[in-house]
């Protein structure tokens, strides 16, 4: 254990995802030794994120302002929506430059073992977006793992009666992985080779 302030910092860092006690200690001592201007920029970035960044009212991607950059862009097609788990998946798909429609960020995947069901995700909000008939195609790009597959199966069944073209982004992606770790080429190919789901 260290003196108050240092230990507090280690504790806070240790709460971050993927940071164990040893890494937390290493980062803390790195910050202690860093130039005060460097630390200042980090603090400012954290404060700005907290003050300015929120979720897009339409698709729940991260946004500065009411709507995200993609929802504000009039050149993006309004008839196709790509459903992803997290904002970081939007970034991964944007890198491929294969997709010109809009997104819908669920905020996770259905995971009953963690107590996460459809009502804990932005599923109702998706259904509301699909109701007015503008959207004609839905691409489900949840992660290629069990939770992602189950979430895709759930959504396909739910939107079945709406008569949209529904497809699943999956082919070629490494099974059991996270979408964000897929490289652009594989992900781009997965877009071209998406499977049609007939619910």
């Amino acid at each position, binding site marked *: 254990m260290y003196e108050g302030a240092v230990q507090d910092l280690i504790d806070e860092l240790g709460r971050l995802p993927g940071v164990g006690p040893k890494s937390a200690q290493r980062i803390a001592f790195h910050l202690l030794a860093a130039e005060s201007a460097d630390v200042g920029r980090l603090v400012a970035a954290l404060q700005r994120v907290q003050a300015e960044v929120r979720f897009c009212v339409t698709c729940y991607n991260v946004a500065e302002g009411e709507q995200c950059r993609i929802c504000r862009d009039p050149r993006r097609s309004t008839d196709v929506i790509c459903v992803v788990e997290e904002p970081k998946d939007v970034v991964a798909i944007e890198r491929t430059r294969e997709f010109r429609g809009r997104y819908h960020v669920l905020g996770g995947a259905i995971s009953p073992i963690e107590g996460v069901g459809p009502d804990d995700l932005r599923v109702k909000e998706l259904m509301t977006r699909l109701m007015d008939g503008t959207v004609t195609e839905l691409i489900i790009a949840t992660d290629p793992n069990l939770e992602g597959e189950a979430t895709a199966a759930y959504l396909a069944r739910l939107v079945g009666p709406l008569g949209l073209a529904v497809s699943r982004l999956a082919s070629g992606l*490494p099974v*059991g992985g996270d979408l964000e770790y897929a490289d652009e080429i594989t992900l781009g190919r997965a877009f071209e080779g998406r499977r049609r789901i007939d619910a």
Partner: protein
Amino acid sequence: MSTTPKSLYRDEGVVLRTQKLGEADRIVTVLTRRHGKVRAVAKGVRRTKSKFGARLEPFSHVDLQLYTGRSLDVVSQAESIRSYGSVIAADYPAYTAGTAVLETADRLTAEEKEPSLRLFLLVVGALRALSDRTRPAGLVLDAFLLRAMSVAGWEPALGDCARCGTEGPHRHFSVPAGGSVCRECRPTGSAMPSPVTIEHLEALLSGDWERAEASENAQRREGSGLVAALLQWHLERGLRSLPLVDRSDVAPRREAGLLSEA
């Protein structure tokens, strides 16, 4: 580094759950045939080029080689026997029912490395039935839960009185008493489920699928409510997955493949 000699062992098992560990590893909880529940580290399993691939995901039936470690064992090899995951995940009712099967198996094995062959066989049987889609997922789950409770020593009384053994059937049902109770023994607050529902549960427990599948939705609903209440009574904490089970499938759906190639 540990200098204690490592002992190697081999067993087959079903992966019940996985938890992330550090950057690239996972802790896998496996219900094995001979060693009961084992928690082991699978190193590097989250890297895309891992030698384990997707073999150590929940619902996987695997042949494992492990060595004993200080606190957790370590997986050194994993061969797939049958992977139920992708088929089950493509079918939402089967996925939610299957998750409840795995969570129940995890919770019923409080002690690690205490052999529980009968529970292992029940889990494999339930996963096979869910992935074959020959029976409604909700019924497969309830049959599993009733039998798993029996294996754990909590077989519900569905005929004779749970307290005094007087020959049934009886109209009253008490979760704390452990099932059907006679007029004299019934505690206050006992329920009076439909006798047909109790017959339905009997059919599930004994594996009489013809009778179980002939049941009406009302009995299935009431039956799964009683099964859930009995299970929750025995477990300290409620199951997370049980309230999320989707019971919308009522008929066998062998023919209904959800995903098809474009």
